[in-house]
């Protein structure tokens, strides 16, 4: 558990510096947050900010975007969370079964 840095971590550090250099190069193309005319603020977000209250009746624009304009995304996302629950249940909670792969020997005693 005690963590020690070795020769291998030097190589990893160099790799991280390379990633940081790539990010720094692409950072120079990013708009600073002081600019108002970036494409993030202009294209579709303009309609969300101006029309959300009159079209959906909800003053909270985040809820309007999440549940009205992009509700299909949210539906699939709810399904994703449900899938996570099903996977967790299938991998841990079902354990007294035949041919149970990762149970070891103790599980086979109970069903005999």
């Amino acid at each position, binding site marked *: 558990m005690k963590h020690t840095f070795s020769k291998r971590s030097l190589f990893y550090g160099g790799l991280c510096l390379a990633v940081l250099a790539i990010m720094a190069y692409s950072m120079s193309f990013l708009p600073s947050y002081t600019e108002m005319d970036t494409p993030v603020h202009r294209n579709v977000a303009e309609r969300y900010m101006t029309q959300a209250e009159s*079209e*959906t*009746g909800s003053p*909270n624009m985040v*809820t309007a975007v999440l549940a009205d304009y992009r509700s299909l995304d*949210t*539906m699939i996302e*709810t*399904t994703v969370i449900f899938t996570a*629950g099903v996977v967790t249940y299938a991998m841990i909670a079902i354990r007294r079964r035949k041919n149970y792969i990762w149970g070891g020997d103790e599980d086979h005693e109970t069903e005999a």
Partner: protein
Amino acid sequence: MKQKHSSIILEVAYRLLIPVLIVFGVYVLIHGEYSPGGGFQAGVILALAVILNRVLEPADVKKNYWTYKTIALAGMGPVIYMMTGLLSIPFGGHFLEYGLLPLPVHEVERHLYGILFIEVGVTLGVMATIISIFDSLGKVGDPDERGNLL
């Protein structure tokens, strides 16, 4: 409620915190269109109330350990969501078009009710999934040698 808890902090947490959490969760759900909040947050807060109950009362929880029923409740969330979406199709709308829901109110208000319906679905799904993952991870059915859950 049968036996007193071992310390005053757990007692106060059990008696005071859980009702407040439930009321606050429902408030966040139905007030999510006007203030920060919504389906996910309400689901997680309601799940927190149940998880606090499970941590503080391991003996009671042993009777209520129905993971597969929790999974079924989690499946109800996307079903409610999809039913709300499908409801506007017979009235000439597209999938999830709230403006044509069969409600006797103005069109903008129908959007509000549609958002409320789908957020109920999201709340159910998130709440039951989080409780189910917690149960599966901790295996609440079998506490360790001293009877503690954590």
